[in-house]
């Protein structure tokens, strides 16, 4: 366990460092933040002065070295537009994203696993074919489009749920659903095929021969084995949601999380804020990965950590 932890930390630091290089390079090579900060009619001298003040006129390696040393001290830089440390802006928006992403993925697992199991118990039945069709539909619809459809139906047409913003639980329903449905599609497919696979295994025959009730054979013996691939995909879904789908879904619903913040920061070319967002998300992805590895060990005794 100790070796596992150390290995993971080293691995995580390397990943985050690589992400830092990529983010730094892209933010320096694409666009010019000075043009966004200063008004259109600013003089050439004013632009040069600001560039100098931000350090953009120094050699790129020197800038990078300073960036990394600052990071090591916990200084993520200052937002160009808000004039505050970028890290505190990101941390303020993080809870909203967690709320949305965890609600969405938890909802997806809670729908997908029972659906996949019921479908797998009777392959080819009506329930099975319906679940397959639903999964295909779910994973074929892009998040932004699904979000807009849900807003049109529930907020505009029926008027039962708010269209955007954050507040009570009713504000969470539509964005969480938008995040969940495509994941339900993918997770149901995996849960179903994995369960069909397990139900054909010899140990299931043994369990039946023990005379225990059918629900135990399916719901305990086979399900625990079938959950291993589901766990892998759930981890992937969680990472994809944090590092991608959150941006679309939060933007469509004006959900005040890190995804929406990223969208705004890019639009306003707030270089340092973008850098910090990407780094924080990278750290989160590393954490989710470690979490999944530990969960594997909990589910499957054959896997040794380290």
């Amino acid at each position: 366990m100790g070796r596992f932890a150390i290995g993971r930390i080293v691995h995580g630091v390397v990943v985050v460092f690589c992400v830092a290089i990529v983010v730094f390079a892209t933010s320096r090579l694409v666009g010019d933040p000075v043009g966004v900060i200063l008004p259109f009619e600013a003089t050439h001298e004013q632009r040069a002065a600001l560039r100098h003040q931000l350090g953009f006129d120094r050699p790129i390696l020197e800038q990078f070295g300073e960036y990394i040393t600052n990071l090591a001290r916990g200084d993520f830089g200052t937002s160009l537009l808000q004039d505050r440390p970028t890290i505190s802006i990101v941390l303020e928006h993080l809870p909203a994203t967690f709320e949305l992403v965890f609600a969405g993925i938890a909802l997806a697992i809670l729908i997908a696993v029972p659906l996949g199991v019921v479908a797998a118990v009777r392959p080819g039945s009506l329930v099975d074919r319906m679940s397959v069709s639903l999964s295909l539909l779910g994973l074929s619809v892009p998040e932004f489009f699904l979000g807009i459809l849900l807003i049109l139906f529930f907020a505009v047409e029926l008027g039962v749920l708010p269209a955007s913003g954050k507040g009570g639980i009713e504000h969470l329903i539509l964005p969480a659903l938008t995040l969940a449905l495509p994941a339900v599609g993918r997770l149901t497919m995996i849960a179903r095929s994995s369960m069909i696979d397990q139900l054909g295994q010899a140990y299931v025959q043994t369990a039946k021969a023990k005379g225990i009730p059918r629900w135990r054979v399916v719901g305990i013996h086979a399900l625990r084995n079938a959950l291993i691939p589901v766990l892998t995909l759930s981890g992937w879904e969680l990472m994809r949601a944090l590092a991608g789908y959150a941006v679309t879904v939060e933007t469509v619903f004006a959900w005040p999380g890190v995804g929406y913040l990223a969208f705004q920061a890019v639009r306003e070319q707030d270089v340092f804020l973008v850098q910090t967002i990407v780094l924080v998300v990278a750290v989160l992805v590393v954490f989710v990965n470690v979490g999944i590895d530990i969960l594997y060990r909990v589910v499957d005794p054959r896997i040794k950590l380290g």
Partner: protein
Amino acid sequence: MSESGHRVPLLEVEKLEVSFFTQHGVVRAVRGTTFDIARGETVGLVGESGSGKSVTSLAILGLIDLPGKITGGDVRWKGSSLLNRAGLKWVKQVRGKELAIVFQDPMTSLNPLFTLRWQIGEVLRHHLGMGRKRAEERVVELLDLVGIPSPRERAKAYPHELSGGQRQRALIAMALACEPELLIADEPTTALDVTIQAQILELIGEIQQRLGLAVLLVTHDLGVVAGVCDRVVVMYGGKIMERGSATDVFQHPGHPYTAGLLRSTPRIDLAQHRMIGIDGSPPNMIDPPPGCPFAPRCPIAFDRCVEPPPFIPAPNGREVACWRAYDT
């Protein structure tokens, strides 16, 4: 079979028919199998793969799942049917308790994610209503009974931490948990090393003597049957070819199929023995012809073999389904 009054059969299988309704057609896996087992008796059910012997053992336990179906005949446990409405309920109570089975492949027959004491204990908790603690204590005793060293520690092990032979021992312990009256051993040694095979057979024999249970040994290995069985039932193409006492059948095989099987079994007791295989391959079980299923491969087949042969009796309850029985 001699149904003299004093022998009370524990299990009776009568004209059992099992079919699998597949996309390619109806596979008639078992076509009218009849035999019985008395208390404490060891019966060998012999045949090559596809002969219907494993399907028969699953059918006894009510474990035939769709697309398979029992299409005829009866299975009686202590005189009552396991196939009628009441029997279908009853079989769930006796399965794993009075009637237990050990499967072929110990490597895959245990659930990889649970400890031995949990898996074996589950039978005790379910059938005997034992608490977790008591069940775990009993699991240790059972593991000791089947000869697993340091059973208290091994009880906490997961299947992947055990060798093949130990896993088969654990599966036998699981089958014995509720002290069943009949143990079906479905090719219990096929997946094991030769040295381990002998140990497992010895173990089954030993436990049978100690607990007085009946054993149905399902196997393709005539050598195994000769060593441990009182009576033997030879199956081919879903039908019974021959049945009788193990000594009679092996010394004077009455059916050309049994004779062929014996010739193709390696023997160490006869130095001059040459192994001779049976030409051809097992029949396609989709819509098989009504006659003797072995006829196409039979060296002494003649015109009449297209008609289903009757059972030709001989002394000691011996019966052979062949027009030229005892000719070999």
